[in-house]
């Protein structure tokens, strides 16, 4: 029991975190995908996905969380989100002008409607989620170094 007290928080927090982290991630994905029929969108969903990983890191310590989402994957997802968003914008040139909505818009109120808006939501959410989690990891690592030196 003493080995689990080394990093992270107590046992109750770890058990509850194991149950709820997957639900928070699922909720974030739901808000991103339904961004064009109900309130939410890419920004809120991206922040919720970053919050689920922050929750994992706060409860278990930084080694477990960094194993699930390593640093190379963080930089890969962030750059990929930005490149995806720019390529959706540039592909609008095939129809006429920059940022044209060129995919066919289906019937309203369904999930597969509204042209490029769901794809833009997914790209934005990747970028925002990975970037904010990277900021948090770097700030916590610096503080960790402080406490080791003092």
């Amino acid at each position, binding site marked *: 029991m003493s080995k689990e007290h080394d990093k992270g928080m107590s046992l109750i927090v770890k058990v509850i975190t194991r149950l709820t982290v997957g639900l928070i991630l699922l909720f974030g994905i739901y808000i991103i995908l339904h961004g064009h029929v*109900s*309130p939410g*969108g890419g*920004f809120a969903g991206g*922040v919720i996905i970053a919050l689920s990983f922050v929750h994992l890191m706060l409860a278990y310590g930084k080694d477990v969380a960094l194993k699930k989402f390593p640093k190379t994957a963080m930089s890969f997802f962030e750059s990929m989100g930005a490149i995806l968003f720019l390529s959706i914008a540039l592909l609008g040139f095939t129809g006429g002008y920059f940022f044209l909505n060129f995919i066919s818009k289906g019937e*309203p*109120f369904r999930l597969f409607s509204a042209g490029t808006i769901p794809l833009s939501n997914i790209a934005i959410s990747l970028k*925002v989620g990975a970037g*904010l989690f990277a*900021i948090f990891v*770097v*700030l916590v690592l*610096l*503080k960790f170094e*402080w406490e080791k030196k003092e």
Partner: protein
Amino acid sequence: MIIYLLCLILFCCGLYCILRKRNIIKIILGIIIAEYAVNLFFILVAYRMEGRSPILSSDVEIVNMVDPLPQALVLTAIVIGLATTALMVALAMRIYEKYKTFDITKIKELRG
């Protein structure tokens, strides 16, 4: 007009905190409060009496909705505010590491 005045008083509370406090973290909190006040002011301008939220639904015909344009602007501004706050906190942590204090009256050496 009273409600605009209350929003402005909230902004002035943040402004007083930026100008008069000596601790860097308190200055950062003042900037955050001023940011909240400005975002609230944008949404207050966009409200319409007896309006509905700007989301269409398939079974009810909605006639008057509130203004959707300032809501789009504020959505962007909130996330940019978070990025600014993170940058300020990173700077504050570096300042603490170098000078061992958060007091702005003791941080006055210009070194290369």
